[in-house]
């Protein structure tokens, strides 16, 4: 039995899945002051409902990291950077860094060595810090200086935690890695306290299943690994619902999914059966990071969106003031419009009609104003889908072939989940001239997503056959190449081996892997090819644990 929990803005949803069937779903209000409380309440309800507490796996999608940042429950971090030559990064960071000399160049050469003395003086500068973050430009090409500085700091001040930029992400972008490493350190203690509290509470209830934490890219991390990389546990809500859709309604055709909740609609794009990833990492507190996620757009249109007149135009959202009038709310909402127009049956229709009467102008029937409001909501969603498609298409590409062929996605269908989907999706589909699907259990797609999300890992292997070495930044290794004639194929095999090692260490089942980036360039001196630079990025394919057809 798999248990999935999604701590949302309003509700915490729980789902238990066993032998391919949903055997329990629960909903409980989210207790923002103490997330542990609603998590445990949801678990207790599932245990009560199923009479079983032998979970094979408990997967959590929580707002704990987001909350820590919003509520400023973050630690002081001693941030040491090795920027080398280039942009002056100092003012682009969330915190004043200590600049250490020494740097690695774009080929991974150790150009200038940092000194132990300056690192000691960084430690004195950060004497009140118990957590450090270290980030060097091109450390992903050669992580040795970052490790060296970490060793010096450990020896001198024995901090609780050190985040290293190249471990947090193996991709190029010093700025993003530095921000990621900083935030990883900043939320480390808070997250670890939470993790310990969850583990203790489960043990005290006699629940021994392993706990996983959802990531923004839809993968899951064993709690022990998440403790080292808590920044990865940010923005998991939309990812959970995307994975839920994946298991509820697998589709190979290009599609757009809409998760229409109470406050927002989350939009994702689909191709070849998987959601499309964002090219760039997420922003945390306004700062660009290397945290990977799906290409998502969230707009302030949901079932509870407030409907009102503004300068002779009927406006919908983004604000909400509680539930629909049909269920006792005080202000007209989109849900009231859906009820009044007969799209859905929910709450008290009389009250919904009253809500529309409040809005109706002279000579307008409640039905007409309801349709106007729905039309406005559908138009907003439609425009957001179009702009997400345009963004995807405008994403820069670096090969002639990719430009000439373009990367337009011709959407063929719409997948709708969430509370507002039943009423609004048919209207959106009509406007776009597409067919639609409303999978069963769409109301708890997020918790289902958490329950069945497959654990993922990724790493980047970069080989320089001229220099005869390769690096895997995420593992902090720089080794000699195993053979002289080293090809892209050899590189991906070697990456596969290292990914398997990493999977073993982190307790993740390797499963199906995929190459998400592969580059091979000749290095030429004069007119002779003297070697190659090969980069390949391999990941455990994100997805759902069970083939959904058998599941539901």
């Amino acid at each position, binding site marked *: 039995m798999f248990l999935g929990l999604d701590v949302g803005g309003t509700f915490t949803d729980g789902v238990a899945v066993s032998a391919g069937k949903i055997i329990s779903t629960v909903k409980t209000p989210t207790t923002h002051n103490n997330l542990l409380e609603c998590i445990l309440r949801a678990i207790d309800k599932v245990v009560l409902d199923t009479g079983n507490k032998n979970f094979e796996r408990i997967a959590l999608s929580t707002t704990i990291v987001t909350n820590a940042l919003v509520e400023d429950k973050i630690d002081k971090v001693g941030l040491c950077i090795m920027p080398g030559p280039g942009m002056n990064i100092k003012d682009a960071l969330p915190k004043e860094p200590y600049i250490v000399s020494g740097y690695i160049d774009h080929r991974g050469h150790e150009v200038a060595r940092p000194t132990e003395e300056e690192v000691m003086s960084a430690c004195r500068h950060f004497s009140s810090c118990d957590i450090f973050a270290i980030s060097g430009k091109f450390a992903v090409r050669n992580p040795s200086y970052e490790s060296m500085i970490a060793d010096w700091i450990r020896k001198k001040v024995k901090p609780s935690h050190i985040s290293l930029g190249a471990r947090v992400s193996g991709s190029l972008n010093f700025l993003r890695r530095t921000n990621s490493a900083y935030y990883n350190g900043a939320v480390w203690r808070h997250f670890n306290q939470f993790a310990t509290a969850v583990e203790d509470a489960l043990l005290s209830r006699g629940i021994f299943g392993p706990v996983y934490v959802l990531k923004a890219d839809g993968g899951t991390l064993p709690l022990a690994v998440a403790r080292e990389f808590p920044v990865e546990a940010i923005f998991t809500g939309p990812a959970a619902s995307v994975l839920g859709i994946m298991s509820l309604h697998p589709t190979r055709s290009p599609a757009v999914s809409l998760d229409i909740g109470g406050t927002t609609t989350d939009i994702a794009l689909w191709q070849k059966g998987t959601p499309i990833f964002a090219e760039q990492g997420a922003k945390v507190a306004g700062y660009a990071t290397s945290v990977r996620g799906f290409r998502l757009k969230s707009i302030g249109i949901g079932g509870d969106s407030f409907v009102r007149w503004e300068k002779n135009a009927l406006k919908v959202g983004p604000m909400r003031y509680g539930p629909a009038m049909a269920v006792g709310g005080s202000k007209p909402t989109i849900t009231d419009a859906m009820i009044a127009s007969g799209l859905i049956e929910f709450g008290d229709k009389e009250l919904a009609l009253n809500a529309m009467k409040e809005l109706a102008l002279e000579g307008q029937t409640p039905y007409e104003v309801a349709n106007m409001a729905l039309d406005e909501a559908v138009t907003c969603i439609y425009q957001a889908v179009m702009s997400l498609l345009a963004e995807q298409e405008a994403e820069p590409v670096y090969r002639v*072939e990719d430009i000439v062929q373009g990367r337009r996605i011709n959407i063929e269908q719409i997948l709708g989940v969430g509370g507002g989907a039943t009423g609004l999706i048919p209207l959106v589909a009509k406007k776009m001239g597409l067919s639609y699907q409303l999978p069963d259990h769409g109301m708890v797609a997020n918790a289902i997503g958490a329950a069945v999300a497959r654990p993922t890992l990724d790493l980047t292997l970069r080989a320089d056959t001229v220099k005869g070495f390769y690096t895997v930044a995420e593992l902090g290794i720089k080794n000699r190449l195993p053979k002289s004639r080293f090809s892209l194929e050899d590189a991906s095999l070697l990456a596969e081996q290292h990914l398997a090692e990493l999977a073993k260490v982190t307790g993740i089942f390797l499963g199906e892997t995929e190459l998400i980036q592969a580059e091979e*360039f000749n290095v030429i001196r004069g007119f002779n090819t003297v070697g190659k630079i090969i980069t390949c990025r391999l990941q455990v394919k994100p997805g759902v644990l069970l083939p959904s057809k058998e599941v539901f």
Partner: protein
Amino acid sequence: MASQKLGLVFFPAFDWAISPAHPEREERLLYTRDQIVEEGLLDMPCIREYKPQIAQYKDLERVHIGVPDLSSLITDAHLVSAGGAIAAADAVMRREVDRAFALVRPPGHHAMRVVHGTRGFCTINIEAIMVEYLRKNYGIGKVAIVDTDVHHGDGTQDVFYHDPNTLFISFHQDGRTLYPGTGFTNEMGSPNAIGTTLNIPLPPGTTDAGLHEVLDHLILPVLNDFKPDIIINSAGQDNHYSDPLANMAITAQGYARLADKLKADIAVLEGGYSIENALPYVNVGIILAMARMDYSKVIEPDIATCPVQSSAVTRSISAIIKERQNMWATKEKLQQEAIAKAGDFWQRGRNIYYDDAGIDERQKEVVRLCPHCSGYVTIETEAYGMFGYKSAYIATIPNQACPTCQKAAYDAVYKAKKQGKQQLYFVQNKMEDRLEIL
């Protein structure tokens, strides 16, 4: 949306090369890509990345006449590279950004009006195509192009040689010591456009100091005097001290300060073949300078190997600055003399060598020195190229041509066709924005 400072069209064409070991090959901008991405430059709020467009043949034909035709001489990469320059121009003209940098390849500044093949790694002239696009779509009149590549921009010079509204300034390593062996001070434009071609040949070993002397005392004052509507930088980077194909001694700081002072509206990458030691740093320096960011920390790791400028070089730079200042000050007089000497028509015969394609083109060019417009141009061209012997007779009608020149251009081509000495007959009609095959 608030205007951002710099638009960046980055297109490294990772799947295009002239040939596998050619300097213009797949990984030329690999290390530059690594550096730009690693810096996080594309995340800066004052920099916005644009995707190149695919240029239309119509855009190309405002500048070029391909013999036998353009489509059999170019690849998709050329359309994307020209489209990159066009995307940069659009971003600036729509005021989405203050200025833009098209960091694209393949390059273009050795491609002349008539194209039989590839020369100096260039097949079509992406700056010239962009300039004519700006004129057609945004009504831009006076344009200044400053070519900062180490090689003389002979293609761009050729395209605008008879156009008094385009000021072409090129500094480069002296043509006696480097490809393409042109760009001397006596190449000043045809009589109606004398002075608007300004060549500044510099001695090998010129450093940042020498370059900035030229910039401060010659290029910037001339620009100030010409008052262009727009400034374009043909931003070649092979004046760098580590470049394998040339012998100059400019640093990333030198280039960044140049970009800072020049304040070009649009920069377009040209050459630069020190792909590992120079390009990553020079490009980051130029991007930061154009985005009005701090570039003081962009220093090459091997900066200690940059030579010092000799006193002989310093003296010869002072001399050339003085000579060129004089020319600029007296250009009206030079023009009157040249027109008086030439009479109604000015003509020249040339051999043009295509090093990449091994083609030797013979060309005769005739310009009508019209008192009312810049005058129509006829070109007779012949060459043994990749399609065997090819010849053509071409007339070009410039923008704002007078009715007499418009008619005379057609008459000339019809007459030539009647004589039948060539295989192909073209009228490049800029007034009507089309290339006609007669």
